[in-house]
């Protein structure tokens, strides 16, 4: 439903400002938790509403752009929403609302310390994600990329224990090293070579850089975007699991990591251009690297004992699906990359929600403790099962849709390596997800817990039920997303 009340440029500005205002109000209302949570929910709902208003302008091709300042002559802080960014901003804002509902149950359920700063930094992180989604050039994207890194550090270290500090160091270390050491030089190199960093359909580098240098530049981008967690830049993601679960759920399954793969996809489509990259000789080695990450992370996930760490390695693997799909350079695969950003988001956020629900209700964090828990927490474990199927890529779940497109793209490009990777990975995903589901429902509990528990607080169950339902519904009602993604390719051609 488009109300058409605001000009697209204003909408973009509000998209960035709303979470910031939300963060400010949250810190001001810290003394009254109910009011504070109302503010969070209202902000999130407003943000999603604003994002929906951008659908029409973007799909109709009117675009929505905004120029704010010009810190470096010729290079401005500018926003320009294109289809992929629209999908990302819709996704992040919708799931922010859901996660806020969940987080309220979570922080109250375990009486978390410093809840105000928790919600405030959360909102700032969303501002970062919105900025990444709507950035019109690499400079702007980098600004918000770093906002996202820095605003999530207090969330990762929220518990302030020794483990949290150590995790925070790895988190910040890897993300800053990659972004300053590789991504920033790559962006400046692009600027020096092309004289612009605007995201332009068809790319800006054709004829301006020789293929070998382009291969190096692409490598700098792929590894420099540490948030995409392509090996060997993946270490921060397991380290971030010391964070409270809502953080892991929204930020480390959706906003932060998707900002990473989103950046890579945008660089591939709008900076290099698919046609130009096809002529870059060493590009296929990055496909191999992403393929390796898919398989290797799955194997590591098999061996994990902690549920959240397992999910983290699963995320690393799934993120490289997207990188892989983007680098296959076939139209269907590009759509698959965009679809998987959405599909994986619903599935993985559900899984993290479940892990958090189990922690709050049963104080259990290890996989081997989950025998028979399906009887005590049927909703949670049903949601877990659905999301697990989506990770494996079984119909009728969202994961199947994206896998369909990626495989289609692999055939378009005659890339059988990708096909093999997908097959192996599907098997591995089944091997680490299905036993958990099986044990939860078909095994007896080891011993009856001293304090018998049921489901987690209702906001948490509501949230995870919603996302699990969305995982199934996306299988059926995916047309709007795919239409928008297809726009992206039309525009890019």
């Amino acid at each position: 439903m488009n109300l058409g009340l605001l000009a697209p440029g204003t909408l973009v500005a509000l998209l960035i400002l709303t979470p910031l205002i939300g963060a400010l109000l949250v810190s001001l209302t810290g003394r009254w938790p109910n009011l504070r949570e109302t503010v969070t929910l209202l902000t999130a709902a407003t943000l999603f509403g604003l994002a929906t208003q951008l659908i029409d302008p973007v799909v109709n091709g009117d675009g929505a752009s905004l120029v704010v300042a010009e810190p470096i002559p010729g290079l401005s802080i500018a926003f320009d929403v294109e289809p992929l960014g629209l999908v990302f901003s819709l996704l992040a804002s919708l799931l922010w609302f859901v996660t806020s509902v969940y987080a309220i149950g979570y922080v109250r359920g375990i009486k978390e310390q410093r809840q105000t700063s928790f919600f405030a930094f959360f909102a700032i992180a969303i501002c970062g994600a919105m900025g990444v989604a709507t950035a019109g050039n690499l400079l702007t994207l980098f600004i918000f990329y770093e906002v996202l890194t820095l605003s999530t550090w207090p969330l990762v270290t929220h518990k302030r224990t020794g483990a949290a500090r150590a995790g925070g160091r790895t988190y910040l270390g890897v993300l800053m090293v990659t972004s300053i050491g590789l991504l920033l030089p790559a962006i400046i190199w692009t600027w020096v070579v092309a004289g612009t960093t605007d995201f332009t359909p068809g790319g800006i580098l054709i004829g301006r850089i020789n293929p070998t240098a382009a291969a190096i530049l692409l490598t700098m981008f792929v590894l420099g975007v540490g948030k995409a967690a392509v090996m060997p830049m993946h270490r921060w993601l397991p380290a971030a699991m010391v964070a409270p679960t809502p953080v892991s759920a929204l930020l480390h399954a959706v906003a932060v990591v998707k900002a990473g793969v989103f950046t890579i996809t945008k660089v591939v489509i709008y900076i290099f251009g698919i046609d130009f990259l096809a002529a870059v000789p060493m590009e296929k080695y990055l496909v191999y690297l992403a393929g390796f990450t898919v398989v290797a992370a799955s194997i590591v996930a098999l061996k994990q004992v902690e549920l959240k760490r397992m999910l983290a390695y699963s995320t690393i693997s799934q993120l490289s699906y997207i990188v892989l799909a983007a680098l296959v350079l076939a139209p269907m695969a590009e759509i698959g990359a965009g679809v998987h950003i959405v599909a994986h988001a619903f599935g993985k956020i559900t899984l993290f929600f479940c892990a958090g629900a189990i922690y709050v209700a049963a104080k259990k964090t290890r996989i081997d403790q989950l025998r028979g828990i399906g009887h005590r927490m049927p909703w949670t474990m049903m949601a877990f099962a659905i999301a697990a199927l989506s990770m494996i890529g079984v119909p009728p779940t969202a994961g199947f849709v994206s896998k369909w497109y990626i495989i289609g793209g692999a055939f378009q490009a005659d890339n059988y390596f990708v096909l093999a990777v997908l097959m192996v990975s599907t098997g591995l995903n089944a091997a680490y997800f299905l036993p958990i589901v099986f044990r939860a429902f078909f095994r007896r509990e080891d011993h009856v817990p001293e304090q018998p528990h049921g489901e987690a607080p209702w906001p948490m169950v509501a949230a995870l039920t919603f996302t699990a339902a969305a995982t199934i519904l996306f299988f059926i009602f995916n047309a709007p997303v795919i239409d928008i993604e297809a726009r992206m390719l039309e525009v890019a051609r």
Partner: protein
Amino acid sequence: MSIVDWMPFSVLLPLIAAPVCALLPGRMLPWLLTLIAVLASAVISALVLPQAVQAPLSYHFGNWPPPIGIEYRVDAVNGLLALLISMMALVIVPWMRQSVNQEVPQRQGPFYALFLLAMSGLMGITLTGDAFNVFVFLEISSLSTYALVAHGTRRGALLSAFRYLIMGTLGATFYLIGVGLLYIMTGTLNMADMAERIPEVADTRAVRAAFVFIMVGLGLKLALFPLHRWLPGAYSNAPSAITVFLAATATKVAVYVMLRMVFSVFGVEFALSMPYEEFFLVLGGIGILYASVQAIGQRTAKRMLAYSSVAQIGYIALAVGFVSIDGLTAGLVHLFNHALMKGALFMAVGAVVYRLGSNRIEDFAGLGREMPWTMLGFTLATLSMIGVPLTAGFISKWVLLQAAIADGHWIVVGVVAVGSMLAVVYLGRIIEAAYLRPAPEGRAPVREVGLWFQLPMWVLVLANFWFGIDTSLTLGTATRGAEVLLGVGP
């Protein structure tokens, strides 16, 4: 009177105020006079810069035309620097009042007089167009700085001041020898005049020796690795206010003199006939890495920031090592931006010293809660140091990397990147202590410092963000300055 006639007063007012200040009794009057003198100097500098950017301004002392008389010659380069020095002084003087009351309880008149002398010395070095006059002001500022450092309350202050004196005197003497050789060869001390005459005698051993003497002498003054040994001690033992002032201005002025001598006096061609690029790129690069690693190992915040300053000087050295518009622009911009960030950081640490009497890093534990505004300012300035976007530090890093990439200096790109990461590590230690570690058991509650500390620090912190977004003053003037130095453009 036109603005050109007012120009020398930005140096003379602090200079004249200094002896008066020394005689004033009590605490209030000397401070007030200092504030007035500094304010006047800043206003004049602010009025001069816009005109100097258009075309160089020239003032002849006693109406003696140069090269006979002494000339003040101000263009985009030193106009920007003069503005920086006087503005920093203007921000620091309100800040220093309480801190000085604590650290120098007695005889504040002479203390403020020394401060004024140091400041007017730095202004004089910046504005003058006479190579010997530079030496005179260099000595004025240096001698008063030695005495200021010696005012520190810590035991090491005297020793540090002495070390600084030895190294500083060596540097000034080397510079003087160089200028003397140039005088013998050219028969003039006026910089512009020298520049015209040097090409005729460029191919002589004497001129080359002069170049080397001046380079090494100024290298000592600007604490270029490996001539930096005096700096950490001087910075960490001086009174907090002096540390802020030195870190923000003193080494910057030495960098300026070096740029002026190399580009405006010797000329690019002569410099390139000497191992100029190698000198700066190698020493700058090693300096960044060495000093950053040293900074990680320091136990007190002031020493850590001091080593960080040595590293930052390395960045400037790298930038001026590329003989290109982009490179010099990067150097000049970083000169300005680094003063903003280091000033803010040292102010935050100074506030902590004021409250705790200590700046050991483990003592920062829990301060995120007890001194929230100070630590927030510190954290934001840290972001600028690391080069996070939207801060002045990011602009510096961007133009520096742009210059390096455009020239294909990939090793430099690597060094800058590694240096930034090391900065994350050493600054992260304080942030981590302040926010993630609980206050030590049994420490009395620490109160946040008052507005006299907060306002100046926040002016600098916010300036870091202002100049990260609106760069017309910094980047614009620096680009113009680079054109002036290289003798190109309008």
